C-alpha cells in the first residue's frame, strides 16, 4: 500500500523521540558550559613545555635543540638558543631556550613536536577555552606561559608521564652511577700515582 514506508519511518521517528525520554543513554548532548565531558587521556590541544622541580627556569627540560622547530609542519615554533649552558636533569651542561614562542593561532595540534622531541620536554596540553580578542598578543605564547610543572603533565597524561619518569629516572641513576664510578676511578687514580714515580727510577 502506498504510504506504508512513510508510516514505518514515522514510527521510527516516534520511537527515537520517546526513547530519549526513557533511556538516559540516548541523551547524547551535553549542556556545555555547565556540564563537561571528562577529558580523554590522549586528548591534545596545544603544546607546553615540561619542567622538573619548582623553578621553571632551572628545571626546564628543553635544551633548545630546535628539532621541533624544524619538524613542525606549519612552522609555528620559534626558538632562540641561549649563549650559556645550564645543567640538565643528569647534571650535564646543556643549552636552554633563551626564548621559546609558540604561535597557537597557527598550530594545528598535530603532536609532531612531541613525537620528535628526544628530551621529553614538549607535551600536549588539553586546554581549549582560549578565545581572546587579542589575536596577535594573546595567541603567541612565550616561555613563561608555556612552562608547566611535571605534576601537570602527570595530571593530563598519567600513563605517558609515569613511563617518561621511569625512563628519565633510570637514565639519571645510570648517570649518577657512572659519575660515582668515575669519581671512584679518579680517587683511585689519585691514590694510585704514589708508587708511580718509583717506576721510572727503577727503569733508569
Amino acid at each position, binding site marked *: 500500500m*502506498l*504510504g*506504508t*514506508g*512513510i508510516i*514505518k*519511518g514515522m*514510527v*521510527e*521517528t516516534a*520511537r*527515537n523521540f520517546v526513547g530519549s525520554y526513557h533511556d538516559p543513554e540516548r541523551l*547524547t548532548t551535553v549542556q556545555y558550559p555547565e556540564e563537561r565531558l571528562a577529558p*580523554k*587521556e*590522549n*586528548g*591534545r590541544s596545544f603544546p607546553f613545555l615540561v619542567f622538573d622541580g619548582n623553578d621553571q627556569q632551572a628545571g626546564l627540560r628543553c635544551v633548545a635543540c630546535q*628539532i621541533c622547530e624544524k*619538524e*613542525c*609542519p606549519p612552522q609555528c615554533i620559534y626558538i632562540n638558543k641561549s649563549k650559556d649552558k645550564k645543567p640538565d636533569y643528569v647534571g650535564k651542561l646543556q643549552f636552554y631556550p633563551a626564548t621559546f614562542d609558540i604561535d597557537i593561532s597557527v598550530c*594545528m*595540534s*598535530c*603532536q*609532531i613536536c612531541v*613525537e*620528535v622531541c*628526544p628530551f621529553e620536554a614538549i607535551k*600536549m596540553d588539553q586546554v581549549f577555552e582560549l578565545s581572546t580578542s587579542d589575536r596577535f598578543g594573546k595567541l603567541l605564547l612565550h616561555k613563561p606561559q608555556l612552562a608547566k610543572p611535571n605534576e601537570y603533565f602527570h595530571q593530563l597524561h598519567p*600513563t605517558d608521564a609515569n613511563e617518561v619518569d621511569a625512563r628519565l629516572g633510570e637514565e639519571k641513576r645510570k648517570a649518577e652511577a657512572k659519575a660515582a664510578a668515575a669519581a671512584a676511578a679518579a680517587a683511585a687514580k689519585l691514590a694510585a700515582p704514589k708508587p708511580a714515580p718509583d717506576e721510572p727510577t727503577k727503569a733508569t
Partner: protein
Amino acid sequence: MAIETTFQPKATLGRTAPGNYTLLPKTPAGAIGGIDGTVLEVAMGPHHPSTHGVFRMDVSLDGETVVKLKPVFGYLHRNHEKIAENTTYLGSVPYTDRLDYLCSMTNNWAYALSVERLAGLQVPERAEYIRVITAELTRLVNHCSLIGFLMQDMGAMGTPLMYAFREREKILDLFESLSGSRMMCNYMRFGGCRCELPSGWIEQAKKVVTSFPEFLDHFEALLSENEILLARTQGVGVLSKELAINASITGPMLRASGVNYDIRKVDKYGIYDRFSFRVPLGEHGDVFDRYMMRVLEMRESLKLLEQALAQIPSGPIIDPKAKLRGFRQKPGEAYARIEGPKGELGFYLISDGSPNPYRYRVRPPSLINLTILEDMCLGQTIADAVIILGSVDIVLGEVDR
C-alpha cells in the same frame, strides 16, 4: 534564434577567455531545445548549501530541466601537494588528515603505505590489524554521514542526519581516545601506528560494533522503504557501466553501476586477504543504488570489524627500522592506493634523496568521481542535480586540495 551551446563570455576586455570556460563543452550542438530565450544560466554555488562546500555548478536550465552543467572547483585549493613537497615526510601526515576531513584514518593509511613502498618498511601484524579496524570504522563514519547529508539534500531536514551523527559520535569518541583528536587523527606512521591502543579500547570498539547493526536496521526502516525517497532516487542520475569505467570512477559509485572492483579485493593491500567479506554490487547505477551501496558496505564493514577485533594479536606496533625524525629515502618512486570510503585513494611519491619528497601527488577519488557530473545530470531536473551531487559523495577538501 539559435542558442549558443558553449558559454562565451561577452566582455572579454581584450583578454582571451579563461581556459576553464572553453573546456568541457560536452553538450552536443542542438541539444539545447525549447523556445528561444528559455534557457536560463544559473551559477549554483559556491555558497549554495546543497553543494557540500565551496563548489559551483554552472547549470543551463530549460524550465527546470538541466541542459548543460559545468562543475567548477578550485575554491578551496590550498596547495596541498606543494606544501607536502616542502615539508618532511613525517610533516605531511597531518596535512593528509585535512584532505578528506571525514576520513582522516584512510588518508593516513594511503600516505603511509606509499612511503612504506618507497622505503621498504614492514608493518607489524598488530599495526596492520589496527589499521584495518580504524579504516573500517572510518568507512562507517563516512557512509553514515553521507547518507545523512544525502537525505538533507532531498529535503528530509535534520532527522536522518542527526540519527547518523549520533552513531558517528560514538566512533569519533573511539578515535579521540585512541589518537587524541576526533577528526584530525594523525595516527598512522610509515612502518606502523603512532601509539598503542589505550586500555579497554578493544572492548569499547566491540561494543560500538555490536550495537551498530541495530542502528542500521532502524535507519533502513526509516529510509529504505520511504515512498518519497524511492520516487526521488530510482532512475535518477543513471551512470552506465561503460561510462563509469571510461571515466575511471571508483568506489561505491562504480560498484553501484555494477562493476565488481574493490581494491581491498583486487590489490589485497594490508591484510584484507585474511578476512571474509563480500563486495556489494548495484545494477542500475542510479541514486538509489548508490544509497543502497553505502548501507550494504556498512554491513560488510561490520563483518570485517568483528573478525579483526576478534583476531587482533599482541606485539609491536611500529617497525623498529622506521625512523620518523630525519627520515630520508634514496632516490626512487612509489605509488600506493587503498580503497577509501569514497573510492581509490592513491599517493604517488618521488624521492630524490632529500628529506622531503621531490614530487607528491594525490589521486583523490572525490575529484575524479565528480568529473562525470554533467553526464548524470543531463535531462534531469535541477532538484535532482542536487541529490545526484549528494550521491557522488564529495568532500571539497579533497576535490580542491
